[in-house]
């Protein structure tokens, strides 16, 4: 029977080496919480801006077409800057926290697992980003918010093979949310706030308590 124990031990050693060497495990849960908070702040800023935009809708109807286009462009630029700000802040804090985390674990941040994670996250995410820009180019604004959620979810599921498997569930939630959002066009901002804000905070907190505090 001692033999059996040895063989089981060998199998579990093999499994853990395969896991550890092929998955990026320094991803910090706290960075998810921060990304969520930034997203909620961004959503609030966008909400206020869109509110004032619709309030002035009547006076806009008095404007000629050039005036309307100008106001609409200004709104889009504002929303884009908010989104870019949220993205940059999240990436910055996420990278810093993840670096700190990998230093604590004595791992290098830029090893092959990190590279693979980034590449496999970037392919579906970049596709989605370009697709959304193309939709904007055609003036189809309605499905942009749902599409970002759906593509983000798919990216997370793709990336889950290269980091904590838990991220898969976040991906599934984002896809369900994105599909639901595509049924309720016009509420994109609320779905965004839930998908990028609340889901990130919940996921980040769960990951933090599950892997980092112990």
């Amino acid at each position, binding site marked *: 029977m001692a*033999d059996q124990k040895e063989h089981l031990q060998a199998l579990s050693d093999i499994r853990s080496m395969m896991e550890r060497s092929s998955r990026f495990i320094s991803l910090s849960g706290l960075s998810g919480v921060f990304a969520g908070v930034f997203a909620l702040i961004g959503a609030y800023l966008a909400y206020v801006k869109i509110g004032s935009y619709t309030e002035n809708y009547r006076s806009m109807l008095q404007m000629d077409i050039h005036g309307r286009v100008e106001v609409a462009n200004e709104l889009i630029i504002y929303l884009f800057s908010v989104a870019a700000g949220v993205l940059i802040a999240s990436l910055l804090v996420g990278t810093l926290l993840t670096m700190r985390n990998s230093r604590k674990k004595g791992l290098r941040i830029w090893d092959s697992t990190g590279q693979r994670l980034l590449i496999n996250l970037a392919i579906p995410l970049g596709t989605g980003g370009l697709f959304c820009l193309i939709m904007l180019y055609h003036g189809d604004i309605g499905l942009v918010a749902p599409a970002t959620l759906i593509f983000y979810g798919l990216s997370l599921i793709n990336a889950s093979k290269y980091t904590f498997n838990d991220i898969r569930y976040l991906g599934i939630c984002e896809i369900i949310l994105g599909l639901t959002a595509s049924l309720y066009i016009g509420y994109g901002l609320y779905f965004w706030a839930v998908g990028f804000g609340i889901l990130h905070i919940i996921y980040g907190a769960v990951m933090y308590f599950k892997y980092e505090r112990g």
Partner: protein
Amino acid sequence: MKNYIQHLNKAFENRIRLGIMSILMVNDKVEFSSMKEMLDITDGNLASHISALEKLEYIEVQKQFIGKKPNTTYSVTKAGKKAFNEHLDALEKLLKQRD
């Protein structure tokens, strides 16, 4: 009762060699330094196990220069994959037999 024990590969009895093979089975190329980190062993210890596996032609060594720094990476050979899979099968069968 078949004796699967004879199918267990002596080369993989050592835990470090088992670790090296496990890592190389799921990664195309691994650097010496990352291998050392993952297995948490000394340079000399790793080098001796690697050369043992290399002699059996289970793993391949690629040496190159990145800038002026020498860079050594390892990958598993076809023979190594086959041997390791057979070893895993044997382990599995041994465990099943006892159920």
